[in-house]
C-alpha cells in the first residue's frame, strides 16, 4: 500500500506541476497578447509621424517636378519671346510703312 500511496502522491505532484505549467503558459499567453496590443497602440501613435514623413517626401518629389515644369514653361516662353523680338525687328519698317499709308489715306 505504501508503494501505491507513493504513486498517488507522484500523480498529484505531476498534476500540480502540469497545472502550474499551464497557468504559467496562460500568463505568458496573456503577456504576449498584452505586448501585441501595446505594440498595436504604438503603431497607431506612429500614424502622425508616418504621415508627416510620407507627405514631406511626396511634397519634395512633387516640388522638384513642378519646379522643373515651371522652369521649362518659362524657359520656352523666354526663347519664344527672344525669337519674336528678332522677327518683329525685321518686320518693323514694313509695319510702319503700312500704317503710314493708312493714316494718309484720305477719302474725298
Amino acid at each position, binding site marked *: 500500500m505504501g*508503494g*501505491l500511496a507513493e*504513486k498517488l502522491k*507522484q*500523480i498529484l505532484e*505531476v498534476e500540480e506541476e*502540469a*497545472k502550474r*505549467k*499551464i497557468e*504559467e*503558459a496562460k500568463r*505568458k*499567453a*496573456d503577456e*504576449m*497578447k498584452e*505586448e*501585441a496590443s501595446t*505594440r*498595436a*497602440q504604438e*503603431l*497607431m501613435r*506612429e*500614424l502622425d509621424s*508616418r*504621415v508627416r514623413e*510620407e*507627405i514631406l517626401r*511626396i511634397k519634395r518629389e*512633387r516640388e522638384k*517636378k*513642378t519646379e522643373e*515644369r*515651371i522652369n521649362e*514653361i*518659362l524657359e*520656352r*516662353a*523666354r526663347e519664344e*519671346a527672344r525669337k*519674336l*523680338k528678332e*522677327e*518683329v525687328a525685321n*518686320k*518693323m519698317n*514694313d*509695319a*510702319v510703312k*503700312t*500704317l*503710314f499709308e*493708312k*493714316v*494718309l489715306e*484720305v*477719302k*474725298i
Partner: protein
Amino acid sequence: MKRIIVGEEKISKFIEEIKRKADEEIKRIIENAKREAENIINRAERELERRVEAKISQETSSLEEEDKRRVAEARLEARRMILEVKEKAISSVFEKLKSQLREFTRTQDYVEVLSKLVCEAGIALGGGELIVEVNEDHKNLNINWDEVARTIEEKTGKPTKISVSYTHVSDIGGAIVRTADGRFTFDNTFEGRIDRMQKTLRLLAAKRLFE
C-alpha cells in the same frame, strides 16, 4: 507482486499521459497566443496603412491643387511675356509712325495731304462756314484755301467759306475743322486720325508684325 508491477506501469503511463497532455495544452495555449498576437499586430498594421493612405490621399489632393495652380500661374506668366513683347512692338510701331508723320510734315507732299485732310473734314461737316485750325508753323505752307473751299462746295453742294486760324492743334500735323457756329468739330490732326483708326491700325500692325 505481479499485480503491483502492472499497477506501477499503468501509473507511470498515466503520469506520462498527464505530462503529455499538459505539454500539448501548453503548446496550444502558446501557439494560440502567438497567432492572436500576430493577428493584433497585423490588424493594427493594416489599419495603420489604411489610415496613412487615406491621409496621404487627402493631403496629396491638396498638393495637386497647389501644383496645378502654380503651373497655371507659370503659363499665364509665359503668355504675359509674349504679350508684352507684342505690345511693346506695336507701341514701337506707333511711335515710329508718329515720328515718320512728323518728318512727313516737313516735306512738300504734306501740303497736298493737309488740303485733303481739311477737305475730308469739311465734307463730313457738310460745308458752309468753316473754321480751319492748323499749327502756327503752317503759316508758311502754300495752301490754296479757295480751292479747298471749292472742293468742299462741290462735294456738299453748299456754299463754303473757310477761315484759317493758326494755333497749336497738334504735335505732329493735320487740322481741326469746326463749323462757324461752333456746334460741330472734326479733328483731322494726325493724332485724331490715329485715335479714330486705333483698332484698324493695331490690327494692321499685328498682321504685319506677327503673321
